């Protein structure tokens, strides 16, 4: 607003009106968000310092006991491993695939919007629906095995979602290396199946986001570069990637946050099995809170999960910086 001389005084009542009106305007939304999201965040911290078994009325303060138990708990370590495997496997893959697809779609091809629609579609359907469909596809006599067998490939025994063996460990065994540490065994075949399903689901959204970012890069920049003699590859790495930095940041952040909280698919498809190899941190919270009635303990897991997600967010911000 331009400051006009002599008008200053008459603007004060408007500013005062805003001071009150502002709060009135935001009140409904802030009341809901405050009560049902912000307050529970504080509560999670508070709960984690108590032993809260819902059946018994006593809720003693136990300080850091829950956290101490957590770090000694084999199941927690397992869940942590599984979740890390999940995130490390899914996020870079779907990002790279999304970028490649976007670059391809950005060529002068017809039907670009058809492809955009087709690829984006899986991500708008319910995770439960996708889980149910893939549960069916991954069955021993399901479509995936059918196609693999027709093409002459072997299929995993036990079949996909029932197979608790770590894929990295199996690969190492195949070349003669025995008995690796659990941290290097890799995701189980079952977890890998769910990871592949996730990549299938979100690869398209990544592509669409990257495509929009690519289309914002003016074509003349590439023209100039190619005239200067830059190869396609050089153009890609020296122009495309740097200009897409904020988009990459966005995609990676969204990806990590999403994969760290994965729950629906585990619940519907495997309930944490086989041999606990698909228990993720999110699922563990559910199991402990609603299966074992150990809500204080579950809250501690939730706090740890939250801390991990925040750290990822902050680290990425630091490394990749913000746009413009």
């Amino acid at each position, binding site marked *: 607003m331009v400051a006009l001389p002599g008008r200053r005084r008459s603007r004060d009542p408007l500013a005062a009106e805003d*001071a009150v009106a502002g709060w009135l305007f935001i009140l409904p939304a802030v009341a809901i968000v405050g009560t049902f999201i912000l307050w529970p965040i504080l509560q999670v911290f508070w709960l984690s310092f108590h032993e809260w078994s819902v059946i018994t009325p006593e809720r003693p303060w136990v300080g850091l006991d829950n956290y101490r138990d957590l770090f000694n708990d084999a199941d927690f370590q397992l869940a942590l491993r599984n979740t890390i495997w999940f995130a490390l496997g899914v996020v870079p893959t779907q990002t790279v695939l999304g970028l490649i697809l976007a670059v391809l779609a950005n060529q002068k091809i017809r039907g670009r919007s058809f492809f955009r629609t087709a690829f984006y579609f899986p991500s708008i359907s319910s995770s439960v629906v996708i889980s149910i469909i893939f549960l069916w596809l991954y069955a021993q006599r399901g479509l995936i095995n059918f196609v693999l067998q027709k093409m002459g490939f072997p299929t995993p025994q036990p079949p996909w979602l029932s197979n608790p063996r770590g894929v990295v460990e199996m690969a190492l065994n195949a070349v003669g290396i025995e008995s690796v540490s659990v941290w290097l065994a890799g995701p189980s075949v079952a977890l890998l199946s769910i990871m592949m399903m996730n990549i299938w689901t979100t690869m398209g959204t990544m592509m*669409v986001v990257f495509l929009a970012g690519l289309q914002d890069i003016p074509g003349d920049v590439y023209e100039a570069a190619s005239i200067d003699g830059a190869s396609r590859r050089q153009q890609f790495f020296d122009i495309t990637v740097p200009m897409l930095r904020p988009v990459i940041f966005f995609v990676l952040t969204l990806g990590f946050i999403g994969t760290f909280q994965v729950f629906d698919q585990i619940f519907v498809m495997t309930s944490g099995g086989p041999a606990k190899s698909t228990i993720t941190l999110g699922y563990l919270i559910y199991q402990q809170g609603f299966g074992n009635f150990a809500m204080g303990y579950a809250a501690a897991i939730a706090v740890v999960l939250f801390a991990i997600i925040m750290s990822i967010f902050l680290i990425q911000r630091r490394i990749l910086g*913000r746009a413009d």
Partner: protein
Amino acid sequence: MASVDQRAVAAPVIAEAERDFAQVRPVGSQDRADVFLRLLAYVVLVLVALIMFVPFAYAVATSFKTRPEALQISFETMLWPRNPTLEAYRIAWDANVGRWFLNSVVVALVWIVGRIVSCSMAGYAFARMRFPGRDLVFLLVVSTMMVPGIVTIIPKFILLQDLKLLNTYGALTVPFLADGFAIFLMKQFFESFPNEIEEAARVDGANRFQIFSQIVVPNAIPAITALTIFTFQSSWNAFLEPLIFISGNRSDLFTLPVGLANFKGAYYTDQPTLMAMSVITTVPIAIFFIVFQRYFIESSTSSAVKG
């Protein structure tokens, strides 16, 4: 990245330069690479589109099969059954899928109305008004976008239990009537909204609420449409909270995803019916998507690009 205006100005200059260079530019490797890349693009994109498409098509086909036919996979019956039947849909109906559908619709409507009202008001206030604590409150609100549902599910459960909202429609709706992302979206929109009309109205003596309801809102249709679409999607597909807040014996309160998961828990051998329920769950959101895809895609990409 060059802004739109600059590019518009530069365009004719560049066009002329291109024409000049067209005569000079060496033919050869660059063009071949172009063609090759284009071909590769087509092949890959079609292949991937197929991979996206087949699971859904197969699910639809299965929903029209009988159970024995569903268990026998062959290329001929992959995309359409030999003897299509509606049996699976009948079983789904008997299992209460109609009620679940209704619940999903009602819940979605409440979410949408609630968010439109609360979040556009809040977005507008954050964008336009000055009031004490504005920036801090906005930061807090927006930061809630970062918090996954599973982290707060336990205190939410306890809270709803204390409020006696568990096992009611309230549990499915009240906590979701506003949302950090929605507020963020609306604020973004209002910020890019030209100020002059509002200024004029202010000078004429209108108060904030009048300005908001009579001037701003009628012009905010695109943003409200985008908000509606996002909210519908979130609501329709919501799973974790409806699962936890509604007891397993209250089939009358299930939304579609919860009903589907429960049915699978009990009748996991009945693939056609599971697929039929999946189809019923996906069709509405699919229709929404196809009709409004512009909004889905553009809204999500714009927030990505603007960071």
